[in-house]
């Protein structure tokens, strides 16, 4: 599942210092749970994103450990405190070892 994975992040472009902003993230991924069977009855092996992290200038905002019960195209909405201008870095870790990244910069002023 390394192809066709596209992260999308909605974050404000600017904030005032210390403001709490809402972040919305979505990444296209099958999130094969390992519970389903194919037409001939063989189980389809699990293939999910198992971890999602968000950091602001290297400081952790949220770190989510994900299980197969997370829906296809995992969506997360959470809040971050923005103390100064900088970059938000979003990282998704796939079962197959792939890492998907997205960065958004936020200006303070």
């Amino acid at each position, binding site marked *: 599942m390394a192809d066709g994975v596209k992260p999308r992040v909605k974050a404000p472009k600017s904030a005032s210092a210390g403001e709490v902003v809402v972040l919305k993230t979505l990444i296209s991924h099958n999130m094969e749970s390992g519970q389903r069977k194919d037409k001939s009855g063989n189980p389809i092996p699990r293939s999910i994103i198992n971890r999602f992290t968000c950091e602001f200038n290297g400081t952790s905002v949220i770190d989510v450990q994900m299980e*197969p*019960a997370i*829906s296809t195209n995992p969506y*997360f909405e959470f809040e971050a405190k923005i103390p100064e201008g900088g970059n938000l870095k979003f990282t998704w870790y796939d079962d197959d070892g792939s890492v998907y990244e997205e960065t958004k910069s936020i200006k303070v002023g």
Partner: protein
Amino acid sequence: MDFTRRETLALGAGAVALTVLPFRVNAAAEDAIAAFTGGAAVADGGVNLTAPEIAENGNTVPISVSAEGATVIMLLAAGNPTPGVATYNFGELAGSASASTRIRLAGTQDVVAVAKMADGSFAQARSTVKVTIGGCGG
């Protein structure tokens, strides 16, 4: 009231699932909670779990959870083949201990959120979600 063959079968399957499932799956969920809390007492209240009362499609059920002062929140679906859903670790710059996501539910069941507070205590909230079509594809 007349039942078609299909409805009768569905009712029968539902009745069997109701009698068998709670006993079997709650044990797994309780184990997961115990592993998370290390056996500490879990208080009720202090955690807000927002889940729909009825979910038509078990593949994407919107869930949001918040707990003021929590550092870690674990989300469990007591009736899924594996009860774990997600564990949120809130970092230094988390604006609030709250998060929303979409989860899969295999059938009608309780969703449980267990929060670990900054002082080391635990709190939980439960919400029953009725699922019309299960989301595990089995």
